[in-house]
């Protein structure tokens, strides 16, 4: 992006920064995708697990840098997303804000609009889903709305590209002129309190980034972040006045001041929307309403969900397996050549290079095939509005683990491969939920671990034993979830969720979104896995792994009742878990493992393999998503769990078998 910036300067393009803000499910990311096309870059906000999407669009003499702010319903700093949006708009000062609004839910959407207006930054309003509003019998007087709220309003249909040029033109005009909107004026009682505060704030050296009226409203609402800022500027007198004004409001209304002010905003919004909007509800019951009912009510919704999930998992396995063999087939000739080349090199570089090659191949043949169908299916489900309905259906069960229904998706993905599952945790709304889910994901037996389960326990003992291990795993995940919910601190967001209408997903948008994610994976994750595997190969070459195996020998015997040679495959399992099985035969020196291991030992070994630290690739992705510290903590946790499970298995099975 930096390079583009330089060349564009040379071409004499003027840079403009545009921020997209809006509620969730208003088509904001669709608009973003339509505007920025292939230029976009998706990452995380610094120090946060919230996704940050940036891109640019060349338009006339301008190059417009677009940032897609996380979906939020207010700017009150209750959730991480709200903090990010607010901080960005105040501190980074984009040249223009484009507030994306769902025309089918004008009243709710205007709440954020009003809070944005309070920031007094150049702004336009993009009124999306105009076609859907029409179908629902909603008519909006765009010009009157624009006049009443004092900013340009542009009707659009983002998914079809209707109105995009208008949005860009109006945004540029507003950015160029730097027109700041007038903040909304509320009822006399609240306005009086604001005026009083503003007088008291006269001499307070408030940084220019914060509009004074906004600061006054925020401390009247009891915003602790803004209060802290005012206190640090020596505004203790202001805060004392705010406290007494707040109390006066609360006494006359019998509600917290924040509720009083929220009600003020809504009553103003209610007046405006009743002026600009006419609703004629169609009498016929529409097909979407019927589908909505079928998918939402438990008696039909649960079977529908089970059907969807089985389709999802089987298509992920099927498409994944197919893609995997295609990619492998395509890569084979090249691999053979590279292997020959490596053979010519001096012995000391070989293990590192072979490790790198293994990592590279694994990232292409094991991860991409599964991440691709996952994203396609995820975006179809996301675009259709089905996911919130799943959340509702499963809410009671997921709640036990401190999660909402949404977390089910990455957990399911974990059965194919933990790497995309870790990345998939991004779809969870709360930070706390992301932490819990990413730990649980690590315990889900992926394809590689299934190879060990099926190849060892399934092969030698029987399918019933393999199945029992899967059942045990699912129970372990649930129990761990229960425990994590109790020990992990952080805000538990109560369920207050908007349920968007069901929509037919736009294939264009689904393909675009999938490709951009996949591209990011190719550019960043593949090289990371290649280097990481090379490092393990190097450590193996200098004898670190063998040394560890020797140290662990006695430990394996005492703790798990396993022969010493089983330590080596466990160590190699860190590189790739399915290698553990191959290494086990190698280390034992026999093909038929039933000659050297009892059933009890097989089960214990499999359980440990399945539970203990994620493979290197998963560890690296986790570190990238959640930070190194969390990745280490989670890995340590799985090691402790694996230890406990191994010891318990050794003891309990001694009695049973």
């Amino acid at each position, binding site marked *: 992006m930096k390079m583009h910036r330089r060349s564009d300067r040379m071409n004499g393009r003027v840079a403009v920064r545009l921020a997209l803000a809006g509620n969730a499910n208003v088509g904001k990311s669709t608009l973003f995708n339509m505007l920025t096309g292939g230029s976009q870059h998706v990452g995380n906000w610094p120090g946060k697990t919230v996704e940050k999407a940036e891109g640019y669009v060349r338009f006339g003499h301008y190059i417009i840098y677009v940032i897609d702010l996380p979906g939020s319903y207010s700017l*009150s700093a209750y959730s991480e997303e709200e903090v990010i949006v607010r901080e960005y708009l105040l501190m980074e000062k984009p040249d223009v804000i484009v507030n994306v609004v769902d025309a089918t*839910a004008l009243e709710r959407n205007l*709440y954020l609009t009003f809070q944005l207006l309070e920031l007094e930054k150049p702004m336009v309003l993009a009124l999306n889903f105009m076609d859907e509003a029409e179908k629902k019998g909603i008519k909006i007087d765009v010009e009157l709305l624009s006049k009443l709220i004092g900013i340009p309003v542009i009707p659009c249909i983002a998914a079809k590209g209707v109105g995009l040029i208008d949005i860009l033109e109006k945004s540029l005009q507003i950015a160029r002129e730097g027109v700041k909107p007038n903040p909304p004026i509320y009822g006399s009682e609240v306005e009086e309190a604001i005026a009083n505060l503003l007088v008291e704030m006269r001499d307070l050296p408030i940084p220019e980034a914060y509009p004074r009226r906004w600061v006054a409203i925020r401390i009247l609402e009891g915003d602790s972040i803004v209060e802290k800022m005012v206190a640090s500027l020596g505004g203790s007198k202001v805060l004392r006045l705010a406290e007494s004004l707040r109390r006066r409001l609360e006494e006359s209304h019998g509600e917290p001041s924040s509720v009083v002010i929220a*009600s003020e905003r*809504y009553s103003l919004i209610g007046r405006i929307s009743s002026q600009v909007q006419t609703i004629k509800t169609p009498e016929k019951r529409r097909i979407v309403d019927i589908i909505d009912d079928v998918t939402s009510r*438990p008696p039909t919704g649960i079977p529908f969900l089970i059907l969807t999930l089985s389709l999802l998992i089987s298509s992920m396995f099927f498409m994944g397996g197919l893609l995997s063999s295609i990619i492998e087939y395509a890569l084979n000739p090249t691999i053979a050549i590279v292997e020959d080349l490596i053979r010519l090199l001096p012995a000391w570089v070989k293990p590192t290079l072979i490790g790198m090659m293994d990592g590279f191949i694994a990232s292409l043949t094991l991860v991409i095939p599964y991440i691709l169908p996952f994203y396609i299916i995820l975006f179809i489900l996301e675009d259709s509005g089905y996911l919130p309905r799943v959340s509702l259906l499963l809410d*009671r069960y997921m709640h036990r683990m401190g999660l909402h229904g949404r977390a089910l998706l990455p957990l399911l993905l974990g059965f194919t491969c933990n790497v995309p599952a870790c990345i998939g945790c991004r779809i969870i709304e709360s930070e706390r939920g992301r932490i819990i889910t990413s730990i649980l994901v690590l315990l889900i037996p992926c394809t590689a671990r299934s190879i060990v389960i099926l190849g060892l326990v399934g092969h030698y003992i029987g399918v019933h034993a393999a199945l029992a291990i899967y059942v045990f795993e699912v129970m372990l995940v649930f129990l761990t979830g229960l425990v994590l919910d109790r020990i992990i601190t952080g805000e538990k967001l109560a369920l*207050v969720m*908007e*349920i968007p209408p069901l929509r037919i997903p736009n294939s264009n948008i689904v393909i675009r979104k999938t490709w951009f994610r996949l591209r990011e994976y190719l550019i960043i994750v593949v090289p990371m896995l290649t280097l990481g595997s090379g490092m393990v190969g190097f450590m193996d070459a200098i004898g670190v792994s063998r040394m560890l195996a020797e140290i662990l020998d006695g430990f394996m015997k005492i703790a798990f009742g396993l022969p010493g040679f089983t330590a080596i495959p466990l160590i190699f399992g860190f590189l790739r878990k399915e290698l553990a099985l191959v290494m086990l035969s190698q280390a034992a020196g026999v093909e038929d493992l039933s000659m050297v291991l009892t059933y009890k030992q097989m089960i214990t070994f499999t359980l440990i393999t399945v539970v203990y630290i994620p493979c290197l690739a998963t560890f690296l992705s986790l570190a990238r998503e959640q930070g190194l510290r969390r990745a280490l903590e989670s890995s340590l946790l799985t090691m402790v769990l694996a230890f406990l499970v191994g010891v318990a298995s050794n003891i309990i099975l001694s009695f049973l078998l």
Partner: protein
Amino acid sequence: MSLNDLTSLDMLLEGEEAEVVMLVGGRGLVTRLAEMGITPGTRIRIVRRIGNRGPVEVYVRGSILALGWGIARKIMVKRVS
């Protein structure tokens, strides 16, 4: 209005309409609800109840919100006929 008319949102049946009278709960929760449009005086309609003690879907201010059962119990309303 007598106190007897007051009931919590979770007691309403599907299709019933009510007016929000009072929000019970901590400042954080109450503010969140108000910001999502559930302020005293708001008209609210039960669209769907998901199971016994499950979330409740309500129509409020032109869109549908899902509220956890625990939250629905904290919203005091009076029925509107």
